[in-house]
């Protein structure tokens, strides 16, 4: 597939999610790099929306918006979710590979990438009793994202709907476990490091 075809295939996926995701899994029509690019674009549009949405709809303290941290947060969330989902579906006979999961998450974000910036621009021109237009746009795109993600996970793993929900719940549990282990590791490494530092200071001062 050429680059242009891959790009156009995005729109095929969001209009025909079942077929689209199936072909991503079985005919390699997706691209991990494109998915990661979409995640990046989503992080960017998310921050842009938080920072530049019109005064009437923007209830966020501009001082609290940090694009870098939000981008890192979005990426971390995607990687975490993908890892957790992959580790669960591996055990539950899911057919999807790690790269498929990443692709599904990235591709599902397309509706949000497409609406957040226009919605932000739109919000500059609305007054307080017209804000529902803005919120409908934002919320619809988020619902679309969730539906696409659900369908995507279902199709690439060849699961039934019930099993998908079950694995998603287990994914959530696995997510908490991963975070717990990471925190544990960080604090352990920190203690080892502190031990090394204090041993070094002791040596320097005694010898």
């Amino acid at each position, binding site marked *: 597939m050429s680059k242009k075809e891959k790009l156009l295939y995005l729109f095929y996926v969001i209009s025909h999610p079942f077929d689209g995701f199936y072909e991503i899994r079985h005919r390699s029509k997706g691209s991990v790099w494109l998915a990661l690019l979409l995640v990046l674009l989503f992080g960017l549009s998310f921050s842009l929306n938080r920072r530049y949405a019109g*005064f009437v709809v923007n209830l966020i303290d501009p001082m609290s918006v940090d694009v870098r941290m939000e981008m890192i947060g979005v990426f971390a969330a995607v990687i975490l979710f993908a890892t957790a989902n992959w580790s669960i579906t591996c055990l539950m006979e899911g057919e999807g590979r790690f790269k498929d999961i990443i692709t599904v998450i990235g591709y599902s974000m397309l509706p949000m990438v497409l609406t957040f910036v226009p919605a932000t621009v739109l919000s500059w021109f609305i007054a*307080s009793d017209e804000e529902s237009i803005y919120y409908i746009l934002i919320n619809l795109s988020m619902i679309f994202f969730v539906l696409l993600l659900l369908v995507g996970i279902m199709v690439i793993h060849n699961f039934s709907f019930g099993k998908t929900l079950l694995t998603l719940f287990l994914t959530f549990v696995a997510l908490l476990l991963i975070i717990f282990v990471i925190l544990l590791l960080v604090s352990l490494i920190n203690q080892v490091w502190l031990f090394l530092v204090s041993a070094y200071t002791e040596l320097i001062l005694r010898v």
Partner: protein
Amino acid sequence: MKLKRICLIPIIILLVFGNGSQALANSNVPYQTYNYDYWNEAYYTPAAYIPDGNISGTDLGSTNMVNPQDMFVAEDGRVYIADTGNNRILVLSSEMKLEKVIEGFDNNGTPDTFKAPSGLCVTEDNELYITDTDHFRVVALKEDGSLLKIIQNPTSEVLPEDFQFAPLKVTVDYADRVYVIAKNMFQGIMAFDENSSFTGFSGTIKVTISNYEKLWRRLSTKAQRQRQVQFIPTEFTGVDMAPDGFIYATNVDAKGLQSVRRLNPKGQDVIQKSTLENRQQKLSGDVYFIMGPEYSGPSRIVDIVYRDNGIYSVLDMTRGRIFTYDHEGNILYIFGGKGSQAGTFKNPVAIEEKDGQIMVLDSYRGEIMTFVATKYGSLINNAVALRYDGDEASAVAVWNEVLKLDSNFELAYDGIGKSLLAAGENKEAMRYFKLGMDRRYYSIAFKRYRDDILKDNLGYVLSAIVLITAALMIRKSVRKRKGKGGREDE
């Protein structure tokens, strides 16, 4: 030439430093003065009020006050102090000189005294109402010191059989109805009619139980439930009567959400709270507080004074701060603090206003502390008064002065914005509303601004639409003809 220059110097000095008799806004004060912005972050402001001395019992020419609990400034300027520990009432003239000491009264022929009088109130006719707490009665005296009436042993179906009426604070409205805060009476402020008979409760505070607490109670056994904390409404701590007959009352709120109530004659709370999205309708002193050993926890509001133009100030015992609000529930300024320096409190219990000065009674020190408004404080007071009267236009100049001293004062931007909106300067108004974080009025200004732009450009837009449709139609017909021609060719 030289003489002229020498003359100029003092004039310049006067211009720079001589700001009249008003205290400078940035004077050194022994407490922090701050305010909360839209994002609920505390920012430092100039001091709105600064300490202006204190008066103790010996200063007045009497013995020291012992644990005084209440203070009242009458219409004629006289100051009444309930010197609780000495079982007496001090009456000060409007010049703050001791006028008389009431130690007792003639109770229908027999001399009678007070026991721990902890609250008082004076009506327009100078009738003095005293809560004689440990004698379980409210005593009303006429101006000459003779007995007017005694309120005691209220009886009613709604009161428990063994109820001991121990009044703490009292206030009287224009129709001589008496409102009493009594010890251990959680159902509200007790109201008495002019014949001293109990008529009911005013301002009952509803108990709120969270779902978590409900669940917890349901899960626990009967024996456990009996030993749990009871859900009782909070107590009222202080009252003040506004001239329009509305009662301003304060209560303890452990969650720090609402400690001030404005009760209408029916006894319902009709206070206006801040409508800011971030303020969560809080009306309880400090918006943020830490939990810890000292000076922590939510503000414990113990007394309130209604000042003119919808402004009221409340006194926080926890951190010794005075919070002043306008009639819409916006915080205007915060000052005061605890400590042992001059101008700080040990245990503040009562607040009053007299001739624009704020007076606070400290029960531990047995002193009245007075505070005078700085330029900053009086500018805010003036501007809010104009705003209260609806005179936004003349408030603008005052608000601009406020902004020179404190460029973060959001209410000022809002006030200027409103007058700009009234003048039809929508774009400028939008700018000010944005600075004042007022989304509602920003929207109004924005709509007008948008309408104006549309109106100005409607001609262009319409002609553009007409031109485009015409162009499209011509193109279509040209194509049709071409198409026909093509077919004819075949």
